[in-house]
């Protein structure tokens, strides 16, 4: 059996290391607005985000770390009614740079 077949299933963080990014330091393009209790939609992002950018803190709030963002826009669409996140494209040239797409 090959390495690929016997290796433990890859974690998403490890996969993101294969990608190229130009991070716009200090200017995250996604922000979660201050909240005490997240809506079901926002909470769903902790599993739904394909890059695993969303996590829940011990006190129950949802946070985003957008450096590994794949810019799919899922979180924007899922929370469109609750308005809990502020989503913009990264500034021109920044963000993920797909080599193959």
């Amino acid at each position, binding site marked *: 059996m090959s390495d690929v077949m016997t290796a433990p299933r890859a974690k998403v963080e490890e996969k993101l290391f*294969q990608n190229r990014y130009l991070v716009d330091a200090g200017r995250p393009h996604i922000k979660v607005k201050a909240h005490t209790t997240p809506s079901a939609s926002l909470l769903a992002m902790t599993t739904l985000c394909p890059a695993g950018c969303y996590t829940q803190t011990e006190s129950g709030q949802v946070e985003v770390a957008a450096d590994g963002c794949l810019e799919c826009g899922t979180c924007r669409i899922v929370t469109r009614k609750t308005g809990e996140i502020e989503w913009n494209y990264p500034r021109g040239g920044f963000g993920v740079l797909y080599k*193959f797409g």
Partner: protein
Amino acid sequence: MGEFNKPFDAIVVGAGPSGNAAAYVMAKEGLNVLQIERGEYAGSKNVQGAILYADALEQIIPEFRDEAPLERHVIEQRMWTMDDKSHTGMHYRSDDFNEEKPNRYTILRAQFDKWFSSKVKEAGALVLYETTVTELVRDLSGKVIGVRTDRQGSPIMANVVVLAEGVNGLVGQRSGLRDEVAPESVALAVKEMHFLPRETIEARFNLSGNEGVVIEAMGTITKGMTGTGFLYTNEESISVGIGCIVSDFAETNVTPNELLEAFKNHPSIKPLLADSECKEYAAHLIPEGGYKAIPQLTGAGWIVVGDAGQFVNAVHREGSNLAMTTGRVAAETVVSLTRKREEMTAANLAEYEKRLAQSFVMKDLKKYKGIPELLHKNKGNFFGTYPRLLSQAMQTWFRVDGIDKVSKEKAIFRNFRETRSLWGMMGDAFRVVRAWR
């Protein structure tokens, strides 16, 4: 950007297949075109399976085969219905697809889009990369007359703005040209690029030269969600991915990454990827709402093409050809109005919709207008029950175990009847026929 004093004939927002098609056709016809792309290069933000349907591009650049970065021409299509351990396949392979001008190719979008963009520049358009369009500029009557970008400077003016901004379509949505995309109308797909020596790919898939195979799969691989998986052979790599409707994903606790890992580890897929090296992990949204989800496409000074207009035929997994065709038709409409010195009013630009209605784009989307809802409402049956029943039937039929064939037939029909009931199956058949015709 104070240097752009004279309005452009057209500004194109985005450099994917629809934007490139639009910009190329307009520039080639002598219009003064500015195209604005937020990525470092065209393709750097774009993700697709990806299959290129030659016909749509051939109508724009007939000689594209001589220069475009193409991977393999598709000679074999495999349609798989999968349960957890099996797949039931319908394969079509023909030497007819080894023709002088092949019909379908696998491509890598980052490379293909970059090439297409170089053609746009050759045709005479001005292309600005690393620039994000932030909003539309309107005159007092509400007509769109230009755009603002995230670069410093005054707005850039144009007679018409072609919105080829992709599935997220922020500019159009924020300007109130269309509603936000609903989570029910869009799929989230994740994809990996797995590299292997080309000889390995050719041996594994029974290919020679630049022949290619594509696999589309449905069944329990999406864990009850509406969605499909795919595996495409490229020259020296394999694209493997899976996508499901966003609202389905939101109701489950399965992460997209876990779903992809499970698909890659399915006994029918795993050997195809053995020993490969993964070099990229990507995610993208795919419009799946079909005909009923198409937003308003034109207005005073603006016109929508490609994914921003929801132009994807989910049943046939076609998108980039609809993107290029809508881009071309929009461009031809603008060229014709410009030549006649007509204004880019809502009424004049509506000509684009008339032309689209005559093309395969609208005819196909209209044909399948009931499919998205049908699949969504019956996802448990179509993506779970039936694939399992099919696999059980196949196994009962093929396993030789001393049981006579009449008893086997009866067992198969009993299994279908007890699992889904006669009325249930008749209802499903009726619904499929109604949505399909």
